[in-house]
């Protein structure tokens, strides 16, 4: 047998022996050396396939890690700080800019009311938002999908009406 033929057969034996043709198998059977290589390759394949697929036990803390990641709020702390800053500071700028309030109410009183309500609302909104975002994160993620579905069904209904 030519060297190039032998080399090709060896490559096929060790790559995908199931693709060997009848002629190639006949050639292999004629050579004790190739027969042995085919057996070696088959036994290697069988040993690898027989390896246990699930031999590792997940660590005990895995569930908590996964759930913590899933229930992590969608916002970061800096988002909250920026929102608070806007809520608290913007009334100050509004009242400074606006001349309409002059004479109607004491400037300091108005600013104090704004800041007070700003902080109060923020403190109420924070736990509420956390609850909504972490518990209903799945629903919020699918707002886009739900909206697309709504659009598709509306278009479908409109089409049906039009064709009637």
């Amino acid at each position: 047998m030519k060297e190039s033929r032998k080399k090709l057969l060896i490559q096929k034996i060790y790559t995908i022996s199931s693709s060997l043709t009848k002629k190639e198998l006949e050639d292999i059977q004629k050579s004790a050396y190739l027969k042995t290589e085919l057996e070696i390759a088959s036994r290697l394949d069988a040993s690898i396939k027989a390896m246990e697929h699930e031999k590792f036990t997940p660590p005990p803390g895995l569930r908590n890690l996964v759930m913590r990641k899933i229930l992590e709020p969608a916002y970061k702390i800096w988002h909250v700080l920026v929102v608070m800053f806007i809520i608290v500071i913007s009334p100050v700028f509004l009242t400074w800019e606006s001349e309409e309030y002059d004479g109607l109410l004491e400037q300091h009183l108005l600013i104090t009311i704004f800041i007070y309500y700003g902080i109060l609302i923020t403190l109420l909104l924070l736990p509420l938002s956390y609850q909504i975002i972490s518990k209903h994160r799945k629903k919020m993620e699918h707002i886009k999908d739900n909206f697309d579905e709504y659009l598709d069904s509306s278009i479908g209904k409109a089409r049906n009406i039009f064709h009637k």
Partner: protein
Amino acid sequence: MKESIDFEELFTQTQSMIYNLGMRLFRRNEEDAMDFVQDVYLQAYRKIGTFQGKSKPSTWLYSLALNLGLGKIRKNKKNLLVENKNSQLDQYIAPEDDQPDKIVLDMLNKKDVKEKIEKALWELDEAYRLPMVLFFFEDMPYKEIARSLNIPEGTIKSNVYRGKIQLRNTLGSEVSL
């Protein structure tokens, strides 16, 4: 029609399967496997509303996990390049006299051969090991492995060939030690 899945129950049923998939894909690195598992379940939680019920929930999750894992591996493609190009272990050297190699065949008959092969498999270059893991454990054909890893099919076949030759030669060298 979309089917609903109990996420907690899905997690309980599949955590071992996904964790072991992570260990296989990421070379038994526990940290990488844990990161992988968290990412899988996070993505599953986000996409749970898209489950159509055409397959079992565990099958759906497994497919999602495998795609995610292969995506991560694809990003770090340099791992799939052969590191030790000058190694002789992955070269097949035909005997001059064409005599069958009884030594390696005898090694395969020994009781502890499975442990030796397993150890050698995990020590292979990533470029050889990964296509073999995908082929043997995930039942992926070479064409699909090539598409998933964005590597030519010929390269995949060549790497599997060299990986098996390296395993073969490792068994042969065990005798001479």
